[in-house]
């Protein structure tokens, strides 16, 4: 018998939401826009982490085997791509680099190879490096280390060649595989799905982050409908019928729970299909769908609990919108939604663990990026469910006090 009013409450809530354009924009359009913008905007930052090659402009004034070998060493490092320019010697290289197309320019001076072989720089540089204004200090350090290593290798090979010419017996002490040192290092990516090319991209960071953010925004429409019902006397009218408190509450929570699940599904689909259409990377959904669903459910329980607490604590819809909106932005900033946790200082990283959005994000990243099992999401899902249950309990207690 309770199903008739429950179905009516759910249908009514969905109808109200479908006519609330502001609510729909907040729940669906805003996070989708964030996913698209942030995925595309941060693509290069994440691509650099994933092996994106920085462009280098080269001016080879020597045109020797040695200068060619140096440029080849830069190219084969895998971190940089070299474009050679035949511009005249008096070209203003600084002004070219300032335009921002190249991270570095390298000018290999005349007689580079012969002076390197003669062990003589004559206090004049063998190469000149120009650094673009927006090139990171760490990238500059890596580029310089690469150059020093390449120069050192050429110089050492020259020395070894000379030594072999002077003493053929010396060759017997040389390793048979000239690249043995490179093979002595094994690289393992820390991602469970570290198959070829499966390196996290901007979209794989953005989608879970903004879907967590979006899920918590049910706080605004849900608290607003609850407050309007209270203010307009509709709640009194409903309570004067035989509609139980449980049915009334379920009539609110069930539709918004469904909205949360829809949000998660749509955001994942947007990352998988829409972002690539706009030139971004494709979201790799490599984790278990069951675990994703479990995380989505836990996330929704936390968001709904917070929504009820805010609805009960606020007297007006304006208060609830302000409290819900501002609260969500603070939780997002703290929880690594807006600024990835890995760029935060250690103290902030510790503090960010207090935000329920951080629990949601870590859980989703564990599934999407790290291919975790149930144990990998249990602490985060458990924390979210606990938070949601505590918030709902507190809201219930406050509401009873209010009605007393």
């Amino acid at each position, binding site marked *: *018998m309770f199903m*008739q*009013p429950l*179905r*009516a*409450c759910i*249908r*009514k809530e969905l*109808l*109200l939401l479908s*006519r*609330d354009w502001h609510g729909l924009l907040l729940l669906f359009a805003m996070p989708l826009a964030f996913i698209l913008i942030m995925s595309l905007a941060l693509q290069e930052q994440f691509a650099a982490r994933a092996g994106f090659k920085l462009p280098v402009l080269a001016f080879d004034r020597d045109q020797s085997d040695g200068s060619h070998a140096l440029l080849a060493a830069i190219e084969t490092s895998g971190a940089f791509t070299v474009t050679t320019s035949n511009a005249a010697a008096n070209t203003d290289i600084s002004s070219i680099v300032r335009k921002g197309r190249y991270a570095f320019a390298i000018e290999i001076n005349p007689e580079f190879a012969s002076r390197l072989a003669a062990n003589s720089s004559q206090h004049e540089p063998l190469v000149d490096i120009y650094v673009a204004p927006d090139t990171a200090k760490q990238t500059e350090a890596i580029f310089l280390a690469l150059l020093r290593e390449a120069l050192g290798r050429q110089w050492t090979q020259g020395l070894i060649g000379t030594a072999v010419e002077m003493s053929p017996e010396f060759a017997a002490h040389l390793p048979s595989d000239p690249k043995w040192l490179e093979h002595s290092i094994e690289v393992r990516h820390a991602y469970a799905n570290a198959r070829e090319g499966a390196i996290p991209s901007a979209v794989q960071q953005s989608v879970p982050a903004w879907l967590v953010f979006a899920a918590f925004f049910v706080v605004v429409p849900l608290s607003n409908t609850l407050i309007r019902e209270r*203010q*307009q*006397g*509709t709640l*009194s*009218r*409903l*309570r*004067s*019928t*035989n*509609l139980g408190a449980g049915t009334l509450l379920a009539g609110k929570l069930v539709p918004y729970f469904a909205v949360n699940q829809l949000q998660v599904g749509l955001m994942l689909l947007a990352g998988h299909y829409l972002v690539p259409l706009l030139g971004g990377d494709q979201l790799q959904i490599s984790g278990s769908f069951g675990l994703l669903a479990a995380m989505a459910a836990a996330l929704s329980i936390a968001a709904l609990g917070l929504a009820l607490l805010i609805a009960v604590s606020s007297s007006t819809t304006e208060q609830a919108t302000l409290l819900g909106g501002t609260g969500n932005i603070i939780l997002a900033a703290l929880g690594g939604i807006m600024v990835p946790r890995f760029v935060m200082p250690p103290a902030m990283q510790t503090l960010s663990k207090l935000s329920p959005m951080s629990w949601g994000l870590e859980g989703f990243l564990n599934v999407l990026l790290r291919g975790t099992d149930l144990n990998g999401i249990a602490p985060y899902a458990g924390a979210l469910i606990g938070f949601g249950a505590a918030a709902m309990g507190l809201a219930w207690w406050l509401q009873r006090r209010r*009605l*007393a």
Partner: protein
Amino acid sequence: MSANSIRINQVTYRYPHAAIAALDNIEFTIPAGKTFGLLGPNGAGKTTLISLLTGLREPQYGTIDIAGYDLHRDAARIRALSALVPQDYAFYVSLTGRENLHFFADVYRVPSSLKRERIEHAVATCRLEEVLDQRAEHYSGGLKRRLNLAIGLLNAPQILYLDEPTVGVDARSRQTILEALKLLKDTGITIVYTSHYMEEVQAICDYLSIIDHGRVLACDSMQSFLARTAGPQLLIQVAAPLSQAVLDALQRWRPASSAPNTWNFATSDSADTEKILAILRQHAMTVTQVQYGVSRLEQVYLGLLETPGT
């Protein structure tokens, strides 16, 4: 106790942290099948009493028996046979009238076989046919009041609580609502009605309770209340202040001023009206308005509120 009557037994209710009780040891009976008016100034305790009768609040002391059931023990049974029409527009303005009616019919658990009939009846009673598929946010104040009332009729209540159902509406909607209430009266349901409009209360209520500061000042049938006034009242508005000579000439009808240049006279029959108007003409007074036999309840009401010790 007869069916659908309401017995309020020594009920006291105090809001949390309030210094005084909103309702203080009140006691009266609302007869079954009658329209019972609750009158009182703002803050008198009328809405608090309605919220106690509808089970939204529980009294700290006293009991309420409705249709033979104890409200505390049998709240579900009582709710099933009653409906509340609150003072506010207690529905969803983003939904159409039809959607609101369907929603509340389901909340009242109206069986599917009866739902269509009940909705049609409520719509016809409150004359909402033309606006049924418009969103309620586009309704005028009067239409919103009518929808508010229509929702209260969906469960075919035997007891209907109306908290100021005509406040702020245009004359046409007020007439529609009052006509609907008269039809409901004829079906024999018990109506508990609060309003500030004396003429409305006088027109539709059979019984009346006047409440102030949480206490019942008087509770009686409408006839008995009206009998408390000496006779029909005459209200005359004049263009200029009455001189002492004029007032002396009118003294036998006990002139009392209720507003600038507005005078009430205690008359025993319509012939008195002619005599009073003749005296005013003799003194070259211009009469701008005459009302006869109205607002008698208002005088009883104001008299009770102003009487010390009541």
